[in-house]
Each structure stands twice: as structure tokens, then as C-alpha cells.
């Protein structure tokens, strides 16, 4: 377990190691759901929630099932199965006990299962040998960082709706350009904390 404070991991995963802007993980839902600010917020919340739950549970599965049984080579399959099962149960539970939250985020949950940022965070946690509290802070920070990035893109895209653009550039092309510029801006933060 590396000797980094969980709080440094938390802030680093938002700013200097942002899942989208530094690691480019979770791009497809990021690009397709960022056309409207409200839905972007919904997806960001859902991703954060799923990230924290799956990473913590995957940490437990790794520590207490995978390592003792020495089946590290199966970790990808097992993590994906856990993520899929967890999202299913989460959706059912939310529908039952938190219906207004389900109404806001429910439609995004199936989309999140295949979001590579979810598996990515779990795998980073494994590679860097994070402990429990570090994993918790890492996943929370990554989720919030992802949420921040999608909200920023949605806000910029909403503002650009009324702009005069060269033909053909609106849509995916513009989103990539904006994301690239945001990523370059975030490089400016590098050096404050380093976790990767």
C-alpha cells in the first residue's frame, strides 16, 4: 500500500488525474449525454454513486476472494461481473426505496455498466495497491472529477447552441475540440500532487 494520504488521492483524482481529462476514460457516455446540462448532472451523479459502491466492493472481493484463491488472472472478468450485478441491484433498490432519485438517475444506470471509467478505477486501485480508505477516496474523487468534467462540457455546449459555427463542426467534432482544450488546461494543474 503506497504511503499517500487518502485526501491527497481525493484531490488528485479530481484535478491532476481527472478520469476524463487526464486519463480519457468513460468518453462515450461523456460525449453523448453532455448535450444538455440537466441530463449531464444526472449522469454525473449516477457515475459517482456507482463508482464508489463498485470500487469499495471490488476492493473487498480482491482482498478476500481473488488474492487468497490466487486467481488474479481472472480479475477482469470477476470485476465486470460484480459491476454488472451491483448496478442491477442498485437500480432495483433505488426504485423501491429512493423513487425520486430513481426518477432522476434511473435511466442512466444501464448505460453506466459499460462505462470504462468504472472498470478503470477498479483496475487502477488494484495496480496501485490502494487500501480501503484510499480506494474509497480515490473512487469518490474520480466520480466527482468525472461529474465536474461532464458538467463543464455540458455548460459550454449549451452556451454554444446559439453560436454561429462553421457547418459540420457542431456535435461530436466540437465536443472533441472542447474536451481537448479543457484537457490542456488541466495539464496546468500537474505537479500539485502526483499519484500516477
Amino acid at each position: 500500500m503506497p504511503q499517500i494520504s487518502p485526501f491527497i488521492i481525493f484531490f488528485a483524482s479530481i484535478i491532476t488525474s481527472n478520469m476524463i481529462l487526464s486519463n480519457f476514460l468513460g468518453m462515450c457516455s461523456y460525449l453523448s449525454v453532455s448535450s444538455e446540462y440537466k441530463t449531464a448532472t444526472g449522469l454525473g451523479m449516477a457515475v459517482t454513486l456507482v463508482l464508489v459502491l463498485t470500487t469499495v466492493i471490488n476492493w473487498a472481493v480482491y482482498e478476500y476472494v481473488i488474492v487468497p484463491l490466487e486467481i488474479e488472472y481472472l480479475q477482469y472478468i470477476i470485476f465486470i461481473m460484480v459491476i454488472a450485478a451491483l448496478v442491477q441491484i442498485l437500480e432495483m433498490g433505488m426504485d423501491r426505496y429512493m423513487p425520486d432519485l430513481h426518477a432522476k438517475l434511473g435511466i442512466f444506470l444501464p448505460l453506466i455498466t459499460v462505462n470504462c471509467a468504472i472498470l478503470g478505477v477498479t483496475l487502477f486501485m488494484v495496480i496501485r495497491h490502494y487500501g480501503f480508505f484510499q480506494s474509497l477516496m480515490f473512487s469518490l474523487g474520480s466520480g466527482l472529477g468525472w461529474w465536474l468534467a461532464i458538467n463543464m462540457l455540458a455548460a459550454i455546449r449549451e452556451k454554444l447552441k446559439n453560436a454561429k459555427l462553421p457547418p459540420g463542426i457542431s456535435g461530436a467534432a466540437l465536443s472533441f475540440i472542447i474536451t481537448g482544450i479543457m484537457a490542456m488546461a488541466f495539464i496546468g494543474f500537474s505537479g500539485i500532487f502526483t499519484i500516477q
Partner: protein
Amino acid sequence: MKENPTNEQLRDTMQEGELVKDGFLGDDQRPVDQIVQEDMALLTTAGFTAERLGAAMRALTHKGMAGMGEEVDAGDYLVKAEEYMGLIGCPFKDNHRAAKRNTTATHKATGRTMMWTDLGIHLIQKHGFFQGKGSTYRLEPLELSAFLGLEAE
């Protein structure tokens, strides 16, 4: 690329046989918000807003309504507005119910004819949705602005 779930729901409502027999999408496979985005981009770059287009269409329809199904002389245009009983809901589920009215307008000078429904006006004015390519009621944004004789801003 993944599709936004709200888009999927919209696409379902706009299919043939859901709200209207022929649907709103024709054979267009693009996600609904992309259709809106690309049409709106064309409009904005040319200097128009969907709001203005919708208002001009509604004004023509209003003139046509005085004819109660018969063609009316409305200045530069001949307008006919045929209507049927009942109301139809909006596929964007915003509690708008439109009359079942078909407006056919002919520009006297060019002889060009364009047709739209009341729901079509609402879709353009409030949602910037000109309908998918291949749909019977699709109106090309720039052809429409030219037809309505609007000046770019």
C-alpha cells in the same frame, strides 16, 4: 457511440405507429438531439431562429383558418387550413396538445408549395425539431426560411 437514454425514449415515441401512423423520423437513423442540433446549426449560421420561423408559420396558418378549409388569399400567399376533430400530444411530452390541422401554403410569385401541421409548428418553434430526413412532413430549415420570406439577422 452510446446514445443518451432520453434520446432513446424520444426515438421510441417518434416511431411509426406510436403517435402518428408514419412517425416523425422517416428513415433517419441519427439520434433525435443530433437531428435538432444539425438543423439548428444550419439555421443559426444563416441568421434565423426556430422561434421566428414558427411564428411566421403560425401567422400563415391563422390566416388560412379564416377560410375554414377553403383556400384563402393572404397577401403573398394562398393558404388552406384543413382540420379534423381531436387533439394530438407532443412526442417531447411537454403537455402540449395540438389541433389536427394541415396547412398548405403556396407562394404566389414562385408557385412553391409547402405543407405543415399544427404539431409541426410546435415542434419547430419550441423544440427546433424539423423531423427526420425521409419523413413526409420534414421541412428543410433553409428552404422554409426562404419560402417564408424572412430576412436574416
